[in-house]
Each structure stands twice: as structure tokens, then as C-alpha cells.
């Protein structure tokens, strides 16, 4: 029950042949070698597997890869340019928005989606948007600070 899929991943057309039961997360990690997205809870709660599907953030651990056939996927690997990090990534470094790092790809992808939708979010908007991305070491203040920093810099 294999299927051939055509997807655009981080701007590049990719073809994979995979079993129908492959999750999008496993397809990205195992078939396409993009191991930035992580599996945490496996049930859509923790946010470590967050990717963008046609620009909207989703939990790739509970998305079937076949459902992304013909669509665009953006992972954390697709955010940086050749020479420089995405402003959100740079802000997470500068404001200390991570420690162990396992939740970070999901945090960064969610934060990018937030700033795409709301370029100047209030703290309340940041909290509501990011509540589905769990962090068990940094705590959330520095993550919020990182997002605020990224938003400020893009205003400058």
C-alpha cells in the first residue's frame, strides 16, 4: 500500500514513495532526512513536531504524509537564508529562548507563523498562539521575550 507523493518541502519539489500509514513527521525525518522537527508527545499536544502546511502550522505527528500530497510544507530547516538565520531564530539565540533545544524547532516554526499572521503581537496574543508549544526547561518568559525581540527587529 505504498503511495508516490509529490510535495514541495522548503521550496523544493520532492517525490517520495511511502506507505500510506506514514505520518508527515516520519516522512520528513526518515524519508526526506529533515530531522529538525521532533516527536515529543505523539498526540498533537506538545508542539515539538510543528511544521507549516500551506503556511499554516500543524502537528506533523498526527498528520498523514499522504494528506500533504500536492501541498507545501515548511520545516525549521526552511527558515534560514543562505547567509543568515531567520529573524526568529536569531532572536531565540540573542534572548536565550532555549536550553536543551528539543522543543525549539517547533517553537521557532510556531513563532514564525505568528509573526506572519500578526506582525506586532501583544503579549496576550503571543501567549495564546504559543500555548500549544511546551517547554520543560527554559520556561516561557525568554521564549516570549525572543518573539517580542523578533517582532521589534522586523519593525525597525
Amino acid at each position, binding site marked *: *500500500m505504498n*503511495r508516490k507523493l509529490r510535495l514541495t518541502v522548503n521550496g523544493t519539489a520532492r517525490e517520495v514513495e511511502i*506507505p*500510506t*500509514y506514514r*505520518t508527515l513527521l516520519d516522512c520528513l525525518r526518515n524519508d526526506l532526512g529533515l530531522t529538525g522537527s521532533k516527536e515529543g508527545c*505523539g*498526540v*498533537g*499536544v506538545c*508542539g515539538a513536531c*510543528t511544521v507549516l502546511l500551506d503556511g*499554516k*502550522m*500543524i*502537528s506533523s505527528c*498526527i*498528520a*498523514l504524509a*499522504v*494528506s500533504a*500530497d500536492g501541498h507545501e510544507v515548511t520545516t525549521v530547516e526552511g527558515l534560514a537564508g543562505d547567509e543568515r538565520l531567520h529573524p526568529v531564530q536569531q532572536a531565540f539565540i540573542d534572548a536565550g529562548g532555549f536550553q536543551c533545544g528539543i522543543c525549539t524547532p517547533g517553537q521557532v516554526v*510556531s513563532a514564525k507563523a505568528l509573526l506572519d499572521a500578526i506582525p506586532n503581537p501583544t503579549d496576550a496574543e503571543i501567549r*495564546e*498562539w504559543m*500555548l*500549544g508549544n511546551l517547554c520543560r526547561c527554559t520556561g516561557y518568559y525568554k521564549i516570549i521575550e525572543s518573539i517580542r525581540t523578533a517582532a521589534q527587529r522586523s519593525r525597525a
Partner: protein
Amino acid sequence: MNAFEYAAPRTLDEALAILREQGDEARVIAGGTALVTMMRQRLVRPSYLVSLREIPGLERIEAANGGVRIGALVTHREVETSALVRERLPVLAETFRRVASVRIRNMATVGGALAHADPNQDPPVTLIALGARVEIRGAVGRRELSLEEFFRDYYESALEPGEVVTGVVVPQLPPASGAAYVKFLPRTADDYATVAVAATVSLEPDGERCRAARIALGSVGVTPIRARAAEALLTGQRFGADLLKTAGESVKGVVDPLSDHRGSAAYKREMAAVMVDRALTQGWEAARAAR
């Protein structure tokens, strides 16, 4: 996850034909948030998945008789952020906003959530209080059912084999009406409710007496529950703290909650009374403001 065949037809007729051929072994998938999670946990092992995602026409929110019609493929986030829903039925936008996280709301669809028939969900509670009707298509044709009659048991709906939900129609509230959704959520903001209540209050032209009220509760039984006895207590009455408290108390015998990590059954029964009181208070205030 088990192996399965997968089809993503472009028309509803094609989807219905596959469902007829495959019988009980097939499951319909839309956003996948419920089904894929259950498959990963091996709670269900369908041999065939029929995706509705590529069928055009099911993803629209439309004006309908003063209210709204929401297609089955509309996501929770789209209802939450819809200008039409916010204008006509703000309580519905607010209810969808209370579901899980933005990320899950981007995936989960309105039709999928109804077909899943999980009594802990938020939207059915408000939809029942608003008098919504669900649209169903099957091989033999289409039918419509009030949402209240649609939920039959824990994870069990009135859908017959081979039928799919195609949308939900939500009427506009009468003039001088207000509505509220209150979700008691003592753990995390993205959790299911411990107790949830939606209430609508419509006032007489005098702006004082209640003409009609509708009350629905979630997370306190095997289906969402409509509290008709509490509604009847309010008809013709003027606002009063005692009246709303009595209406709240009256639901204690109607609810049948399970003890779980969100609270004991006894606790949820007490909180159901409190939440009905709060929802009615907010709904009544909103009705006065709407005059």
C-alpha cells in the same frame, strides 16, 4: 499504525461510492486530529481511509437565513476567525477559540469533530444551545437532523454506515437575545473542559421577562446534554440571582459525569450547577445589552 488503503476522491459521490463498497472497514478522514491519534494508539484499525480533503465545496462558511452554514471541511480556526460568524454569532467564534491550541484548530474540521461525537468537545455544546442542525449525505440521499438528536452515546452518532456529515446550519438568535459559553478548565488552557455550559436567553419585548432559554452542557455525560427542565424554570420569569441558582441546581439530577483526572463525578455535578448559573447570568446580560 496499521496498513490501510487511502483514497482522496474529488467528488462527494465518489467518496460515498467507496464507503458503500468498503463497508465497515472504511473510515472517513478530514483533519485527522482525532482519527490519526486513535489509530496511533491502536484504538481503531481501519483498512481503508477515505479523505474528504480534496472535495471542493465543503470548505465554505456561508450566510443562511440570517444565520450561518458551515461546511464540514471548515477548520475550527476558520470558524473562530470568520468575520461572518463573529458578526452574526460571536458566541460560536468564541467557543471554537476555546478548543485546544491554534495548531490543532488549524487541522480539526467542523464535520470531523461532530462525526467523532466526543462528549468532551466544546463546539457541540454551543451548537446545541443555538439550535443547530447537521447536514448528512449518504448513498440514498441527504437528510438533516437537529444536533441534539445527532449524538447517541459515547463516541457514537446517528450517522448510518456510509453516511458523512457535510455541514452544519446554525440559525440566528431572535431579537433581544444573548448567548454565552463558559468552559471550566482548571488544568491547562488547551485541555478539554471539566464542565462546559452554553446558554442562550431570549427576552420578551418588555426586556425583562425571559421568553425562552436554551441550555446545553458538555463533559458531564456520554453525549452533550440539553437541560430542558432548567430552561422551563426560566420561561416567563424576571432576572433574579435566586432563579438562576435554582436553574443551576436543577441540572444536578440530569448530568451523569465520569470521575477522571479532571475531577470526581460528585465535583463535576456541583460545578455543572455553578457553570449553568454563570452561563445564564452572562447570557441574560448579553440579551439585555442586545435590546
